[in-house]
């Protein structure tokens, strides 16, 4: 394995200097930065009238027989604290024309104890004024209703605006905090494992296609070449993933206090524990699939053969991903299917990641799953090295699965024969 370091370095630089890789990484990072600011932008877009009409007044038309001017003024001022409230005595047509000319932001004509007409120039789906108006009128109604019982206005307000304080004590895992980051990370796991696996596959086929393999195979052992390629491409992928995660966390931290409401921020922020598990399962999952894909790719002579050879593995990954997504919809993360999948080699990286982040799972189960993955990766790596050794010098029609199996057996036989020799 004396050449493995050189091969890893070469493959890593090959990947990270690749124009497509740089462009895709830059595009993803820009997208992340842009989308981090997006909620804030949407929030500001959601109340466009507020910004534009900061200095505008709102008009309230209310007959004294319904509610007293002081009460109206106080409750509306409470519900619209940043806007001047005008108790208008104008006729309704004048008010309408002033609203239309944007002299009033909007107007509320109180027509009954619990009835009012909302007069606005444009009615937006993001408009929250009506809720606030309703809140003010409701407060006025309650206050007026309670007055005969000797309850003063401020006491009535205290009753109306009484707030219930609560706190959540989670004895297991807080799914409300973890579920969105988990889905995001699982999606990243799926996309990164498949795309970096593809990078390995393309690289192997291109070396065969250009016949660079003819020389490479005489300079380094096939095992070194395959491990070097898988690790090098994996490190490049890891660099990309680390950049994405760092920029995501960084930009979230940057905008959290200002633009994003705390509830949304909580939903999309990734916990350190989840990030560590994502890294662990990325490493394990990537190696397992990359060895498999690299070995199969070594049997392809042309890029056209590649998709046929690796499609069963890709299909398997998609099935695992889809099954997990459907299972998660049921929100039963301890579903027997997910439990079984979390210990099966090719599905465990994603399945155990879900269980580990969304359920209250004992650490030994995570360790057991990781151990299954490590052992499977070693077995797959040994088998893959055998296929790779024979595959890289195989040109012509791509071999059938039975032939690939024979190659593995022949390789094992040769190895044991060599070991048996003194």
């Amino acid at each position, binding site marked *: 394995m004396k050449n493995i370091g050189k091969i890893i370095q070469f493959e890593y630089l090959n990947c990270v200097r690749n124009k497509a890789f740089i462009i895709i990484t830059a595009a993803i990072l820009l997208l992340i930065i842009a989308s981090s600011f997006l909620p804030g932008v949407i929030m500001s877009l959601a109340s466009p009238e507020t910004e534009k009409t900061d200095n505008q007044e709102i008009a309230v038309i209310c007959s004294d027989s319904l509610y007293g001017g002081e009460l109206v003024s106080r409750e509306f001022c409470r519900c619209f604290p940043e806007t001047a409230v005008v108790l208008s005595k104008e006729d309704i047509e004048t008010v309408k024309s002033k609203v239309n000319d944007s002299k009033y932001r909007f107007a509320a004509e109180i027509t009954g104890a619990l009835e009012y007409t909302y007069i606005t120039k444009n009615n937006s789906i993001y408009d929250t004024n009506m809720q606030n108006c309703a809140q003010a009128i409701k407060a006025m109604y309650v206050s007026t209703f309670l007055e005969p019982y000797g309850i003063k206005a401020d006491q009535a307000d205290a009753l109306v605006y009484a707030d219930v304080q609560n706190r959540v004590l989670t004895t297991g895992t807080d799914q409300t905090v973890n579920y969105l980051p988990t889905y995001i990370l699982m999606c990243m796991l799926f996309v990164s494992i498949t795309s970096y696996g593809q990078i390995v596959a393309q690289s192997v086929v291109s070396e065969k296609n*250009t016949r*660079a*393999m*003819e*020389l490479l195979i005489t300079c380094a052992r096939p095992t070194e070449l395959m491990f070097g390629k898988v690790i090098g491409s994996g490190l490049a992928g890891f660099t990309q993933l680390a950049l994405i995660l760092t920029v995501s966390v960084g930009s979230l931290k940057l905008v959290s206090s200002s633009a994003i409401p705390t509830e949304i921020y909580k939903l999309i922020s990734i916990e350190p524990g989840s990030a560590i598990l994502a890294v662990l399962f990325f490493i394990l999952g990537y190696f397992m699939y990359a060895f498999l894909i690299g070995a199969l790719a070594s049997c392809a002579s042309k890029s056209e053969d590649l998709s046929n050879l690796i499609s069963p593995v890709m299909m398997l990954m998609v099935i695992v991903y889809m099954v997990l997504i459907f299972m998660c919809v049921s929100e039963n993360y301890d579903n027997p299917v997910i439990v079984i999948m979390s210990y099966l080699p090719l599905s465990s990286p994603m399945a155990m990641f879900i269980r580990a982040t969304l359920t209250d799972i004992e650490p030994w189960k995570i360790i057991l799953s990781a151990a299954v993955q490590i052992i499977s990766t070693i077995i797959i790596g040994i088998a893959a090295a055998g296929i790779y050794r024979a595959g890289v010098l195989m040109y012509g029609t791509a071999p059938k699965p039975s032939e690939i199996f024979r190659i593995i057996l022949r390789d094992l036989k040769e190895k044991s024969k060599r070991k048996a020799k003194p």
Partner: protein
Amino acid sequence: MNFEVQNLTKSFGEKEVLRDVSFSAQSGKALGLLGRNGAGKTTTIRIIMGVFYPDSGSVLTDGKPIDRNTIRIGYLPEERGLYPKKKIEEQLIYFGRLRGLSKKLAAENTARWLRRMDMSQYAGKPLETLSKGNQQKIQLAAALLCDPQLIILDEPFSGLDPVNAGLLRDVIKEMIDGGAAVIFSSHQMNYIEEFCDDIVILNSGKIAVSGSIKEIRRSYPRNNIVLSSTQSAELAKYLIRSISDIAESIMPDEKNDTVTVRLKNEHDKARLISELGRCSIDIDSFAVSEPTLGDIFVRYAGGSV
């Protein structure tokens, strides 16, 4: 240094590709490894390079099993290939490092070989921007980067124009003179004759013939005599009259002004000379015709070149 291939046997599945193949290559000499396509040359080379393991037999250096970590081997495969999109200098340094050179030495040797191949100006360019002949020169540089003690060249001259072929010829001679052992595989017999003292011809995985070209030629009966004369037709008629008892065939070639006489017995050359002395026809030369390497190849490798 003596590189020896000893009793190599290799099968792929049921198919026996090599059977008991043995030969040796010495430092400062070139050995021609010949055979038809599929005869087992590439498998032999791959076993020497350590890509395949033989079922039995071994590769030795000075009588000991070869240690590929210490012996520097340069290899020019028949199927040329480097990274087309990578810069030439970058990939040569990479291959040099894989062959065991330090980064610094790989860079120095890359610069030296690019200069020698007259390719320095392309060092920073991707390989694919070069012509096929120039790519071939880069491939040769990749093979020679590690200052190899054993050089294996598989069809090194294919695709080269006469100027580049001349350059390659000089480089190979320099390497042989510098003490490298060269194993030369080619179907271009003129190059084999030019560089190699010894040859090995493989036929269906077995050695059909091996040894020095001179000896192999000498093993052929020396009964083919080529007479050169501007009166070849008259000479042929005279010989038919005078030596028909000792000649197997007499073939005039008016185009080349020669007559080829095949004697029944190679010891009858003296009789032929005395008969020629008696005739008045002007004879320019008398030579024993030796088989060409092509003739030897056809005879031992089977089929045509």
